Every structure is written in structure tokens, then in C-alpha cells.
């Protein structure tokens, strides 16, 4: 008897993903960032909010690796706490937008007809508000603040997921296994949840990862323009906004938080690219 080596889809995926060094490094960076954010209370060397008027606007030193801000607060500590804020906002908004978008997409694609027409028209209208604008509109209604920023960013992610999933659902609906399940009388809810939803997931996961980058960027932008995190909460975008007044005097206030945003967003984008390439066969 000969044995053939058949890998499970999960293992096959991991084998392909592992070969992509950039994506692996990005994954490591993401793990470090998440760990740092969770461990903030233990690893942040100083308080995130207590001012120290003996150490105002100090440059990087052994005592303060990333320097201090205009209140003498340690920037590295604020960056670590700020990571917690950014990652939480990014994660929650992507999850929320993803769940709503996927649900709308599956319902739209599965039922078709007027339900599809209605949902897609709503999506079209949402897409008529470009870029950061829907988020600003939501913040204008709900008021500034981080929780509202989560809702705002989630809302702008909904159309992307809905469109993506609707397309996959339309294709999956016609596959033999779904048709077969339908013919033996599997309920529509079960068809959608058990047979169609899993098929949409690879593409959804790739988009969710890429969307994490966008969401973190948007949250930072909203905080930067004063509509997101409110002082003294340490948020990377809000910290940059502080740094603006000290350009040329204390550049480190501007440089380090910006670097944190760039590295985080870059890591999620490269990770998402890697995921897409590893899943490619299934996506196309």
C-alpha cells in the first residue's frame, strides 16, 4: 500500500503563508504590538497621564527613551498605552463593521430580488460619502469621543464587506453542494450560516486584516483633528496633534507616535497581503 501525503487546508495554508517572510515578520510585529498593549500596566515605565514639571519637552535619554511631552509625561509610556487604544478601536470597529457587512452581504446575495435591491441601494448611498466623511458625519451626530469613533469607522467598513460577501454568496449559491443541501430541505438560515458563510470567510479575513490598517489610520486621523480621543487620553493621533506646536523645538513628540502608527498600519497591510497570497487559490 502506498501512502499519499494529503494536507488539510489549514496546514496547506500555513505552509504557504510561512514562506512569505515579509508577512511572517509583520505577524511577529503585530503579536509584539498586541502583547505590549495588553501588558501596558506592567511594562510602561511611567504613568501615562501624571505630569512631571521637572522634565518638560526633554529629548530621548536613558530615563525617557522617547523623551517627554509638554507636560513632562513620558512619551514611550503614552505610546504603549496609546497602542492599547488604537488596537482596541481598530479591532472593535473592524469586527462590528465586518459582522454587519457580512450579514447584509449574505442576505442580499442569498435572497436576491427586492431585498437585494434595497440593501445594495443603501450600500450605494453609503459609498457616495467619500473617505473619512461618513466617519465625520457620525461623529458630528453622536459627538466626539472614542466610542463614537468606533461606531463611525465600523459604519464606513460595512459597505466594503457587504459588497465583497454578496459577490461570493452569489457564486456559492449556485454550487452543487449548496443546491444539494437545499434539495434535501435544509433550512435557509442553516444554508446561509453553515454552507455559505464558511465559504466567504477567506476573503473576509483578508479584507479584515487590510481594514485593520485603514481603521487604525482613520481613528488616528480623527483624534488628530480633535474628534476622537480627548486629552489627556494617550492616543497616537492626538499625541501628534500636541507635537505640532513644538516642531523644531521638540521633534521627538511628533516623530515617535507617528512612527508607531506607521509601523502598526504597515504591519497589518503587509500581513493582509501575505494572507491574500497564501489564500489566493481559494480566492480566485
Amino acid at each position, binding site marked *: 500500500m502506498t501512502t499519499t501525503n494529503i494536507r488539510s487546508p489549514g496546514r496547506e495554508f500555513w505552509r504557504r503563508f510561512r514562506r512569505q517572510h515579509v508577512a511572517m515578520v509583520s505577524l511577529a510585529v503585530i503579536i509584539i504590538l498586541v502583547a505590549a498593549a495588553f501588558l501596558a500596566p506592567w511594562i510602561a515605565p511611567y504613568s501615562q497621564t501624571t505630569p512631571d514639571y521637572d522634565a518638560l519637552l526633554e529629548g530621548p535619554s536613558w530615563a525617557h527613551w522617547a523623551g517627554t511631552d509638554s507636560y513632562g509625561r513620558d512619551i514611550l509610556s503614552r505610546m504603549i498605552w496609546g497602542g492599547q487604544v488604537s488596537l482596541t478601536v481598530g479591532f472593535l470597529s473592524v469586527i462590528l463593521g465586518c459582522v454587519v457587512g457580512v450579514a447584509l452581504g449574505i442576505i442580499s446575495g442569498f435572497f436576491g430580488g427586492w431585498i437585494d435591491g434595497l440593501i445594495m*441601494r*443603501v450600500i*450605494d*448611498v453609503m459609498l*457616495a*460619502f*467619500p*473617505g*473619512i*466623511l461618513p466617519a*465625520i*458625519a457620525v*461623529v*458630528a*451626530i*453622536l*459627538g*466626539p469621543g472614542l466610542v463614537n469613533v468606533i461606531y463611525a469607522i465600523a459604519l464606513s467598513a460595512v459597505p466594503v464587506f457587504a459588497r465583497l460577501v454578496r459577490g461570493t454568496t452569489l457564486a456559492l449559491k449556485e454550487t452543487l453542494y449548496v443546491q444539494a443541501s437545499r434539495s434535501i430541505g435544509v433550512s435557509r438560515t442553516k444554508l446561509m450560516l453553515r454552507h455559505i458563510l464558511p465559504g466567504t470567510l477567506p476573503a473576509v479575513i483578508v479584507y479584515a486584516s487590510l481594514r485593520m*490598517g485603514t481603521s487604525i*489610520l482613520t481613528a*488616528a*486621523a480623527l483624534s*488628530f*483633528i*480633535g*474628534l476622537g480621543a480627548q486629552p489627556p487620553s494617550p492616543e497616537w*493621533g492626538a499625541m*501628534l496633534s500636541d*507635537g*505640532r506646536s513644538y*516642531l*523644531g523645538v521638540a*521633534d521627538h513628540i*511628533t*516623530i515617535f507616535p*507617528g512612527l508607531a*502608527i*506607521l509601523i502598526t*498600519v*504597515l504591519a497589518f*497591510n*503587509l500581513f493582509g*497581503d501575505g494572507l491574500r497570497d497564501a489564500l489566493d487559490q481559494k480566492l480566485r
Partner: protein
Amino acid sequence: MFEYFLRRLAGTIPVLLAVSVFVFAFVHMLPGDPARMVAGQDASYEQVENVRKELLLDRPLWEQYLRYLNQMAHLELGRSIKTHEPVLTLIGQRFMPTLWLTVVSMIWAVIAGVGLGVLSGVWRGGVADRLAAGGAILGISFPSFWLGLLLMDLFSVRLGWLPTGGYGTWAHFVMPAFTLGSAVAAVMARFTRSAYIEVAGEDYVRTARSKGVPERTVIWTHTLRNALIPVITLTGLQFGFLLGGAIVVETVFAWPGLGRLLIDSVSFRDYPVIQAEILLFAVEFVLINLIVDLLYGMVNPEIRLK
């Protein structure tokens, strides 16, 4: 072509109407009483009721909506709560700076993006391709406001070459347009590259090359021309991104445009201005998409026939 134009034009009407419903509903979604908001926190009960009558907030919703549509059609956008100036005047003052900023940014983005995309498509796998690929992912991930601050730090604060902000001469445009256009350039470069590579693999390109057409003609006439058609669409779609991005970049560079007006209005809760601006942005975006579709129909007859 004319029929296509009409069909496409008719297609935007429901979207515009739906957008207007949303923007109309905006005021009604706000927490609290819109009449009190307009009248001010310290207004007496009578004053609030007068405002309610004046703004017809006591009428049925559908009547208010029709009235709102009529006002929009006549460009009656109300007055700012903050400055009491007509919203139309406020927006009018800010319109051109934002338009110019997005146009100049787009020119930069197209030149840099398409240029890089073509270079990396022609010399696939080469040094230029690798650099462009790195630059593209960096451009997408770079926070625009941070890029703006870094440029300002270097060129204004340290070197003193360019003004830190404001509006007026060409020097004021350099940093904001570069900042705003760079992310779009990155997206364009990636897209142009894949469009070029796709067309370069077509049979007719191979045929042209095998029958001895000079390489330059193959690149310019056979490949580029066809590869650039989808790029037109992308350029149009990215205008929306620029409009959105302008909101942030204008804040960095104290640019007297629509974006900063919007942020100031949100902070001040100046609802008539916010409402008008959101409508304006959405209408602009829908119209740009329409223009893009029409242009696309002109260069690609297949689309027209569908």
C-alpha cells in the same frame, strides 16, 4: 453614446435623492431638539417655539423634506449658527482652495503613480519595480498628517524654504499637495503596474512584438494605451479619496478650505454648515463618478453597449 449618457444620468438620480434623504434626516438624528439647538441654549420657551415655526419643524416630515429639496434646488442652505453668515457664502469662500488643492494633488498623484506603475511594469522584477512596490505599500500605510508634519518640520521650520501653512502662492501648494497626493500615487502605481502587466500578456502584444514592431511602439501604442483605460476609472474614484483626505491635510496646513470649515463646524456643532457640507461632498463625489463613467464610455465602446 447619447443613450448611454442619459441612462447613466438617470442612474444617479435615485442615489442623489437617497443622499438628500440621509442629509435631511441628519438634523433629526441629532440628540436633542433641533429648534432649541438653533435658538441657542439660553433661549426662552417662546423663542424656541418661534424658531420651530420659522423652520417649519412643526410640520409633517414629508412636507419638511419636500421643502428641504426645494430649498436645496434654490441653493438656500440656511445660516451658520456660529457666524450667522449664509452657509452658501461660507462654502463659496472655501470652495476654490479645496478644489485647487485636490486638482494639484491629483496631477502629482497621476504623474508619480502612473509613471512609477509603468516603469515597474516595463522592468518587472527589476530595481525600479522593487522600489515602487515598497514605496506603494509605504504610501498606503503612511499617515498623511504625520507626513505633513514631517515635511513642515524639515522644509519650513528647519530650512525655512516653504511657508508652514496658509493659502496664496504656489509655495503654499507644494507640501499640502505632495502630502495629499502621495497616498493616491501609491494606489495608482500598484494599479497601473498590474493593468500594464495584464495587457502586456495579451495575444496582440505578443503578435506585434513577433512581427517585428519596434519595442518602443509596442510599449507606447499597443500596451500603454490599453492599460491606461482602467486607470481613468481609478483616477476618478480616487478624487473622492482626495476630497476626504483634504479634510485632514487642510487641518495640518491651516488651509482655508472646505475640510477645515467642516472640522470647525463639527467642533462648534454648527449643524447647518455640517449638513450643507456633507451634502456638497456627496454630490461632488457622485458627479465625479458620473463623469468618470461617461469618459470611460467614450474610450471603451464595449461599456456603452451593455
